[in-house]
């Protein structure tokens, strides 16, 4: 403490805020367009190993091959894992409580990370279908979440 009785500054505050405009690239762009315009979910078919990856990339994460084509998958899928959120994290697109889910869509070989309502029917092995938002913007959140079928 100084003679005047003041405390020594402990920290300084600041903000490092950057606005980004991330290039989606051709493959992701097509995926987002199909969500927005047609309510369709596209997977990437690998020219090397034939795996269908969802979400799609222009290359195969499994074998390193090139993506041959984009193919519609789902809309039905099976939950392979889930996790319940009680307190929504920053940037969450839905209110808590909700669930994170891994969904293996029909016709896909890799699982999509997405959201589901906090419904006890959302469990491993359960069939779910996407619920699309109105006023879609070309984002993965154009699917609000996946809900149990029926």
């Amino acid at each position: 403490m100084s003679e005047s009785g003041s405390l020594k500054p402990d920290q300084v505050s600041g903000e490092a805020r950057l606005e980004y405009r991330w290039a989606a690239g051709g493959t992701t762009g097509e995926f987002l367009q199909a969500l927005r315009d047609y309510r369709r979910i596209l997977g990437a078919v690998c020219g090397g190993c034939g795996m269908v990856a969802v979400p799609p990339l222009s290359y195969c994460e499994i074998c390193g091959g090139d993506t041959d084509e984009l193919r519609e998958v789902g809309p039905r899928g099976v939950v392979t894992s889930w996790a319940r959120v009680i307190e929504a994290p920053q940037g969450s697109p839905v209110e808590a409580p909700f669930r994170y889910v891994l969904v293996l869509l029909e016709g896909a070989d890799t699982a999509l990370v997405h959201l589901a309502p906090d419904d006890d029917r959302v469990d491993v092995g359960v069939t779910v279908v996407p619920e699309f938002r109105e006023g879609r913007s070309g984002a993965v959140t154009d699917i609000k979440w996946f809900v149990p079928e029926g």
Partner: protein
Amino acid sequence: MRDAAVLGWAQTEHRRRAVGETPQSMVFEVVTRALASCEMTIRDIDVVIDAGSDLLDGRSTSNRAVIDAMGAHFKEEIKVAGDGLEAAIYALMRVTSGYSSTALVVAYGKSSETPARCQTLALSDPFYLRPLAVDALAAGALQARFYLHEYGLGSDAPALVAVKNREAGARNPYAQEKSPVTLEEVMASPELISPIRRLEACPVTDGACAVVIADRQTSRAASVRPAWISGTGHGADPYSPGARTLYRTESAARSARKAYAAAGISDPLSELGVLEVSEYYSYQELMLYEALGLCGEGEAADLLASGATGTGGGTVVNPSGGVLCANPLVATGLVRLAEAAAQVSGRAGEVQVDGVDRALAHSSGGLAMQFSSVMVLEG
């Protein structure tokens, strides 16, 4: 393989918030103490390899402002983007290639200065994961459930990891969490994202670590007992969590196999006295028992329950208390190396396990353990 050794090391006393410390002051402290621990000075160091985070520091190319605190000015200096154990692997390559004789490895993280979950949310790509707010905790929770479901385990199985590690951490003077917890307390702690509970998740930590790695000639002539590096491995799983067999950490398994082949290890459970692994969440330690070959797939919960990996067991995992007791992000894996080196050279103080000939250090990074590094040490 006795081509290189860890000669010296130091870590900070890890804290939730290191009031009065800057990244530079923490780095300066551990570098000074690590050099002193092997009776070297900065003049004995050929190259400095460091790991820090631009995101945590809030500065681009964050190493540039820390160069002088590391003693790296007027030397070769390289920053590794990842955990400090990856920087140590780079250092090992430097000294075994003959390009350098000695390397100083430095890693630090001051997580208290920014919101903790934003730090790992930034690991997520901006198209498929970040709009859904998928951070390390969310990805970890999905992996935890996947693993538990695959082997029909209850959520009390990983909770026992927290009990074991907090018991050990209570002896570690550098640990942040120094109080033991009971199984009941772990199970009753609030769910962060199910099935991960608060006491099963790593704390938010400020801390740093420095390690000195030297070539064979320097190590043989050293005044301290070297911790010889007899094997290493490093690798990654696919980026997308859904593109992996999520109940298995393939990159850790492959890294371990490579390290064991170099070290001549065929039965890690009987040949390793200590493993220091990076369990950011309790379930990860179970998965790592399987990936690192201590048991078969799905057998980790039984191995843990047998007591084999706890205090007094034959293969003690995380005698330091592990990441559940201190998580100086970016330095977390390098701390594992310092602890493993201390064990094989009989310098682990309060957490020393008797008669450790060989120890393993492991680090992971990314969402749901995407990146893995392994190093095997011998006394």
